[in-house]
């Protein structure tokens, strides 16, 4: 028998010469059958888990289309709600209102969230202030949305003596910030230090390195974080109950109560009228489609100009 590195006996001479592995032995065959079975079982479990995650989503979508699409017509997108007792009417003001409130909260929440994440990842390493911010963000993330609504109610609505689109935007913006901050921080942490050094080594100032190199490299992940935060607050009802309040009529001003799809759905779904129930289904469908369209558009916009071989 040849003595290669794997079969050399121990130098002290006490060990026996081991036989080379017999791949046809009964034990090996059993072993490989066992591994084969385990491999397939684990793969099966992974597939099953994926299905479990996706199934409710698909079921909800199908059910929404089934229940909601029959009430979708031109009036739904162009008319304001009809008074009680009359048929017809739509949710045009709520669609617009949702757009305004979401635009407002994105404009306020996304820059603040990203800026805080940049501070945590690029400037605050090891500083006490950074730990405090990180902790606050994590706690804020766990605050129930109704509490956020009440907080903004007492901070803004009580002081101004009226509900407003602005107050709704602030409530949603505060809900967005922690998610965006933590994702931004984590995504920036994945940018290799060598790339920052490359920029600094070229005489690029730190602020420019952060903007044009770190943030740019991390941008796909940061955009995903912003989209997740956006999609989450787009469906929030509780923080709007005490802030944007809702409105049965058109409203374009930021300092007036404004309609929003989740609020309208909430009101209609709670009502005793079948007609309103159907409109609530349609509103839910429109809300989900709006979120999906917004997320998809941002993704398409963000992926333009990605180069061949870019990682």
């Amino acid at each position: 028998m040849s003595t290669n590195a794997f079969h050399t006996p121990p130098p002290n001479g006490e060990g026996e010469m081991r036989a080379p592995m017999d791949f046809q032995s009964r034990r090996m065959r059993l072993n490989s059958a066992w591994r084969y079975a385990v491999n397939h079982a684990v793969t099966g479990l992974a597939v099953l888990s994926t299905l479990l995650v996706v199934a409710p989503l698909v079921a909800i979508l199908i059910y929404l289309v089934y229940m909601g699409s029959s009430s979708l017509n031109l009036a739904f997108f162009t008319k304001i709600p009809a008074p009680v007792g009359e048929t017809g009417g739509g949710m045009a003001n709520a669609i617009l209102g949702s757009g305004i409130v979401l635009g407002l909260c994105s404009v306020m929440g996304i820059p603040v969230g990203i800026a805080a994440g940049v501070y945590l990842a690029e400037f605050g390493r090891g500083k006490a202030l950074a730990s405090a911010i990180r902790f606050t963000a994590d706690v804020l993330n766990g605050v129930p949305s109704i509490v956020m609504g009440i907080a903004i109610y007492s901070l803004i609505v009580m002081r101004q003596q009226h509900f407003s689109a602005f107050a709704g935007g602030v409530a949603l913006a505060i809900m967005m910030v922690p998610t965006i901050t933590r994702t931004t921080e984590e995504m920036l942490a994945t940018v290799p230090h060598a790339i920052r050094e490359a920029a600094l080594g070229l005489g690029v100032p730190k602020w420019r390195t952060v903007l044009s190199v770190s943030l740019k490299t991390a941008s796909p992940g940061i955009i995903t974080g912003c989209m997740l935060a956006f999609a989450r607050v787009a469906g929030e009802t509780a923080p709007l109950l005490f802030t944007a309040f809702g409105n049965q009529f058109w409203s374009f001003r930021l300092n007036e109560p404004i309609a929003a799809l989740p609020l309208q759905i909430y009101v209609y779904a709670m009502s005793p009228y079948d007609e309103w129930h159907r409109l609530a289904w349609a509103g839910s469908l429109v809300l989900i489609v709006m979120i999906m369209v917004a997320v998809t558009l941002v993704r398409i916009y963000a992926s333009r100009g990605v180069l061949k071989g870019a990682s």
Partner: protein
Amino acid sequence: MGVGINVEHLNAWYGTTHTLQDINLNIPANHATALIGPSGCGKSTFVRCLNRMHETNPIARATGVVKMGDIDIYKDASPVTIRRRVGMVFQRPNPFPTMSIYDNVASGLKLNGFRNKAILDETVERSLKASALWEEVKDDLKKKSGASLSGGQQQRMCIARALAVDPEVLLMDEPASALDPVSTSKIEDLIFQLKSQYTIVIVTHNMQQAARVAENTGFFLNGKMVEFDSTDRIFTNPKDKRTEDYITGRFG
């Protein structure tokens, strides 16, 4: 054209570790100077002190005088202005992954706010030719990401990127240690050509490489510079016993 570098009583620390101890050294202009020594001896820290990259680490600290021409880089200038005059090439190629080949090479100018397209075009071409990469990439300049090139090409692109800002000094921290022999020899040829125009300081673990490209060689050990002399002398007739032990492979 390059400038000479004059280092006097340079000390550097990482936290409480005294990584460089009283280094005194004259690096002549327009020559290649190699720094050799076992891992952890302080050669990388030394080159990082020459463009003030050392201090980007929050726990790092340096004292002493480093003169580049007439300028004391720790007193008379900001880190940013110094780094524009001193190019650096790192151990592993570090292209900007989101940028095209063109943008990678132009990044030093573009990120500093330079926008003139004609001059950018010309600089990119000149730098890529100087780093012997032009012929291989000229058709994909704006189409391909810098990260899509092979390791050796990436490293030559990083050299082009450093050259594009027209530095006087080129610091190379083991520029070929992550590359295959063919790419390594290309990089060495390149250093050989570049040293007539730039002051080159190259850290290397490969003693043959030091012998091939550098006129002068310094031997570092445990944070001190043991010996600095012409490369010939260091490799044939070193004065210090420790240098001799190292180059004959008795330790390290």
